[in-house]
């Protein structure tokens, strides 16, 4: 007896199910991130990852196999030239499903399925990390840090001039460099904080 497919049955029949999954896979590879129901996302994940594995193999046979599912040649080309090589070092697990709660209208549980580690994703993650660090620093030393940094900047400039002219002690130079880096980090962190957590964190406050 053949093992039944895991997950929910979709659509009105096997052909309908195949078509829906193929369309979902095409949309996922085209956009990198799609919102759908949890059941469809769970059915889509193994199919999409299998197609990406074909894309990593990259030969003509693999391309023809993928063409039987994804009918759009531009999407297949993108899959083989961009998405496949992107995951060369990743042994599976190319997609991520995040639940986003029930849908208005029919209360169906919805989810976002996305390809992991696109470039924008990393940027966002770094931004949130920087925001957290900046918030921590602000909690530890609130307004004094800003004033000190301003003072330090002026000191740094003067010290840099002196170092260029007189070639003063190496120890003081090192300290100056450290302070410069700290100030730069703080400024970068604050900017990232403003960009990343505009609404969420501020609303909570």
């Amino acid at each position, binding site marked *: 007896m053949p093992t039944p497919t895991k997950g929910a049955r979709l659509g009105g029949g096997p052909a309908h199910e195949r078509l829906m999954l193929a369309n979902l896979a095409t949309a996922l590879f085209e956009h990198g991130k799609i919102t759908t129901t949890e059941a469809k996302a769970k059915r889509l994940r193994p199919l999409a990852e299998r197609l990406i594995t074909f894309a990593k193999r990259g030969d003509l046979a693999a391309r023809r196999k993928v063409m039987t599912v994804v009918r759009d040649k531009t999407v297949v080309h993108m899959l083989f030239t961009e998405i496949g090589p992107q995951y060369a070092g990743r042994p599976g697990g190319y997609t991520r499903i*995040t*639940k*986003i*709660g029930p849908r208005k209208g029919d209360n169906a549980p919805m989810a*976002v399925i996305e390809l992991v580690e696109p470039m924008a*994703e990393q940027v*966002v*993650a770094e931004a*949130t*990390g920087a925001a*957290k660090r900046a918030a921590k620093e602000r909690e530890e030393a609130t307004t004094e840090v800003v004033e000190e940094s301003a003072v330090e900047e002026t000191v740094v400039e003067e010290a840099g001039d002196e170092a260029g002219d007189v070639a003063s002690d190496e120890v003081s130079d090192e300290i100056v460099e450290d302070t410069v880096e700290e100030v730069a980090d703080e400024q970068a962190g604050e900017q990232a904080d403003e960009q990343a*957590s505009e*609404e*969420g*964190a501020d*609303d*909570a406050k």
Partner: protein
Amino acid sequence: MPVPKRKMSRSNTRSRRSQWKASAPTLVTCARCKEKRPSHTACPNCGTYAKRRVLDV
């Protein structure tokens, strides 16, 4: 085709319906925005899950 012989009394109807109970959803506090959200779900308020932006809020 079999059908009920007697009209069901209001008392019986209401007794049956007394077992209809709503349950409170299990909520956790979002670490980022401190709002309540369902567990294992992206926060509907700030649109993040596991420090990752999922929704455009």
